[in-house]
């Protein structure tokens, strides 16, 4: 572990961060919601995510400043995002929506309009002034070093220290992501909400029709 450097992500890390967002979205399946909802190939999604990250807008899951990375010999090995929800009184979902509208082609938005009713059934609001854990990913060759656990601890400590009035950490996980669920439960998180979609069609667009919301209190 001592050879890994943990540092905040920079815009130069955008390609790896885009890969992190894609792999985390897929939750171990081959279903990438950015592809299924917007009608894009994974390669196109990667390109647009880089465009979004390069805007360097803070405060959401698509912000470079939300990520920390583990680096080994100059190569990024793992990344994890977390942010304080609504720190500037604007929900992160609004910031994300603005970025998507700004970067994606109009035909992607048109396609999303037809699917929105199905997709939004699994939407769970983020509570303001809480830490939200976003995407995490370890490159294949660096697995087995417990990097996500290390990054988790590092980013939570950092955000708690920087934000005195924030004392809970939240994560949303698709039910198919059993390894992630187990890791969070082992770390003391508990499931507080389970959201299940009634429309079976949702499985055509998202990795699962069920989502867990987990939380842990600190301080």
């Amino acid at each position: 572990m001592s050879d890994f450097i943990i540092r905040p992500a920079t815009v130069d890390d955008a390609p790896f961060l885009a890969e992190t967002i894609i792999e985390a979205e897929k939750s171990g399946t081959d279903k990438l919601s950015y592809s299924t909802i917007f009608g894009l190939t994974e390669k196109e999604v990667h390109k647009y995510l880089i465009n979004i990250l390069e805007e360097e807008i803070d405060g959401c899951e698509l912000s470079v400043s939300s990520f920390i990375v583990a680096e080994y010999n100059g190569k990024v090995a793992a990344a994890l995002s977390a942010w304080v929800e609504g720190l500037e009184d604007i929900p992160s979902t609004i910031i994300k929506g603005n970025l998507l509208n700004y970067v994606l082609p109009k035909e992607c938005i048109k396609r999303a309009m037809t699917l929105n009713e199905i997709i939004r059934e699994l939407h769970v609001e983020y509570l303001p002034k809480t830490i939200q854990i976003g995407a995490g990913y370890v490159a294949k060759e660096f697995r087995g070093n417990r990097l996500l656990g290390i990054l988790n601890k590092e980013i939570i400590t950092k955000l708690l220290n920087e934000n005195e009035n924030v004392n809970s950490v939240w994560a949303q996980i698709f039910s198919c992501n059993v390894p992630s669920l187990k890791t969070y439960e082992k770390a003391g998180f508990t499931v507080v909400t389970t959201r299940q979609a009634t429309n079976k069609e949702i499985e055509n667009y998202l990795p699962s029709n069920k989502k867990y919301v987990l939380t842990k209190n600190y301080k």
Partner: protein
Amino acid sequence: MERTELIDKLTTIFRATFDEESLVISDELTANDVDNWDSLTHMILISEIEKGFDIKFRLKELNKMKNVGALIEIITSKID
């Protein structure tokens, strides 16, 4: 465009986007006040407003909008 006319047009877009016929917009209205105001719906809302008013928001403008009042102000400045 008169403010009332602008609000009427905006209300129509909001109601269609959120599929909520009784939705009433006010200056103080925020995303926290409306069910299902998630990132996808917001993206669609902004896109429909741009189309409806034939305007294009800058990213910087969008990320400063804390409520519908701020949104109305920016639309007004763009169509005047």
